[in-house]
């Protein structure tokens, strides 16, 4: 789960991680009081959306930049008014962009130098890793490829956590000295504490800055969380912003379905993430394009399958449906029952190809055959994919 920058900064404050003073609001009426709470000096006006690349983004009305530096209160108010409820398009939003519903005002920072800092779980070592670089504000992937020697890492033993000397080593490698090195080490140490305590997937500070008064500060913040651990973090769940999610994906999450909207016209309903991905791949191989990724999971009920059907059919792009089930935990007769109930509930008018294999396959096939619903059945995955692609192409 992703959260906004201003929410991440609230967590930073709780964990004693220094960052520029800021205030966020979704209401025009509160712009002035937010700005007034910051004190004198430059004001940074920041659009709050989950996608990156905000600074270089463009609003659909032509206004440039989702992050602006204002010299006066009037200028800050003008920027905020132009951003709020406007749609920001960045390299990460896709052409449709995202509506900005919250504005975050922060004090302008006295930047001496920019750095990169992140903490994430490293799959290869099964341990958290702190990643830092002297090159802040740039794309870290590019840096990793071109100048890997400028990236420093500290691997953490998860049973004892990040040790103070590891945080210090990173600070020294980044070139900090004296008290500032201590401040940087402290920031890294607290950031790790937050990463671990909140079950974060990743915490990224890009840039981390040094200031001319000898301090360090987290200028930006990008934080995401392990969705499997949200059950033990009600405070984090409260940060969820449904405006940032596809309505179909929100609906799917209510039924514990794993759904991702895609651009094609063939909907698929599959059990198992690997098979769901492979089903998208084979639709593509047969000349079609998948409208979604949908894994109904291991223990789906008829109710969940019905919900899944309603969700995929609510996508107007969908011209045909492929159901591909290889039953293990999931029993084929349960899927068949769900398909039948859903088809009746939504008065299905799109071509449907079903391929069933696995536990209780014969009962499942019989239920479908006796249902009176028009279903093309398939014997193998390749057969199923080719059939739905051909049917959609012909219609």
């Amino acid at each position, binding site marked *: 789960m992703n959260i906004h920058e201003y929410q991440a900064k609230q967590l930073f404050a709780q964990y004693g991680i220094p960052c520029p003073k800021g205030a966020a609001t979704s209401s025009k009426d509160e712009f002035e009081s937010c700005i007034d709470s910051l004190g004198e000096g430059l004001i940074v006006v920041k659009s709050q959306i989950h996608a990156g690349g905000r600074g270089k983004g463009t609003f659909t009305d032509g206004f440039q930049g989702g992050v602006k530096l204002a010299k006066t209160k009037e200028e800050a108010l003008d920027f905020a008014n132009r951003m709020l409820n406007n749609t920001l398009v960045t390299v990460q939003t896709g052409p449709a962009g995202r509506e900005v519903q919250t504005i975050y005002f922060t004090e302008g920072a006295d930047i001496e130098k920019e750095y990169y800092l992140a903490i994430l779980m490293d799959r290869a070592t099964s341990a958290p890793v702190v990643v830092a670089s002297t090159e802040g504000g740039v794309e870290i992937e590019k840096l990793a490829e071109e100048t890997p020697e400028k990236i420093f890492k500290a691997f953490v033993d998860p049973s004892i956590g990040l040790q103070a000397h590891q945080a210090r080593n990173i600070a020294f490698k980044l070139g900090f000295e004296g008290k500032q090195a201590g401040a940087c080490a402290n920031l890294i140490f607290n950031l790790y504490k937050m990463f671990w305590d909140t079950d974060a997937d990743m915490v990224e500070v890009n840039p981390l800055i040094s200031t001319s008064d000898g301090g360090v500060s987290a200028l930006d913040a990008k934080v995401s969380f392990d969705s499997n*651990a949200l059950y033990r973090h009600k405070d984090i769940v409260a940060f969820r912003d449904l405006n940032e999610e596809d309505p179909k994906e929100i609906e799917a999450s209510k039924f514990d379905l794993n759904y*991702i909207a895609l651009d094609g016209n063939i909907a698929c309903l599959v059990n198992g993430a*690997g098979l769901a991905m492979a089903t998208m*791949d084979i639709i593509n191989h047969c000349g079609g394009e998948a409208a979604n990724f949908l894994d109904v999971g291991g223990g789906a009920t008829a109710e969940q399958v019905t919900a899944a059907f309603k969700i995929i059919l609510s996508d107007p792009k969908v011209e045909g449906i492929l159901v591909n089930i290889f*039953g293990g935990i999931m029993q084929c007769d349960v899927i068949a029952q769900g398909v039948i109930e859903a088809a009746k509930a939504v008065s299905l008018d799109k071509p449907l190809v079903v391929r069933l294999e696995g536990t209780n396959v014969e009962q499942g096939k019989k239920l479908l055959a006796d249902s009176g619903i028009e279903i093309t059945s398939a014997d193998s*995955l390749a057969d199923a994919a080719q059939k739905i692609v051909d049917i959609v192409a012909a219609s």
Partner: protein
Amino acid sequence: MSVLVNKDTRVVFTGITGKSGGFHAKQCMDYGTQVVAGVTPGKGGQVFEGSVPVYNTVTDSVSQEGANTACVFVPPPFAADSILECLDAGIELIIAITEGIPVNDMAKVKKKLLETNARLIGPNCPGVITPGECKIGIMPGYIHKPGTVGIVSRSGTLTYEAVWQVTSLGYGQSTCIGIGGDPINGTNHTDALKLFNEDPDTEAIVMIGEIGGDAEEKASEYIKEHVKKPIVGFIAGTTAPPGRRMGHAGAIVSGGSGTAEAKIAAMEAAGVVVAKTPSDMGAALLEAWGK
């Protein structure tokens, strides 16, 4: 012959009194697996399906019934603790089916696991089956057939797909290992390939991967050096949209790897015959095997 599990394996199911734990324990027993005990804290003394004693602790199941393998079926918030309990009880092989264990919990489990000689399969996996002898997990038993093809996969249902194709072609499986789809798992592709490579009764290998991480690239290095047996592969996720569930900074640690293209290239360079679609895994096996 086979790897990991056989007719002599003595299995304890943790979470046996739960709905799906009970359902699948019964399915495994029907297949012929020796399910010797169940564990549910507070329900010790009950009897499952009229024959399997339920204990409060894994240690009791080991001392009383000689369990040497565990199948973990408890819900995600308690699953890491259940795995750690199995380690403390001296269980040699732990197969964790549970999906949705927090990654921080697994990081701690992995650390502890590396200090022992035990092996963990999963979590978030379909389990392990040696056809005709022992099924531990949630896979449908009837699609399997005793034989000489070893199968390892990160995805449950894709494993069934591969198994079914192999069986339909008239061949069988030595053992099928579902290593699970989580970022931190107990056994990776390379570990499983080593087992198959050293097993005299495994003649050919099918390896199924998916996007994310670099386990398939690492396995390809091992294959290049050590594996002389015919081996086929498939990678799911060629058309998956980039950026979803793959963290921004994740790319730093794994370098340029993680994409389906990189994995397929690494596998082909190691001599693996990579199936173009999931429906071609059987045909690719015949090609690699010269059948």
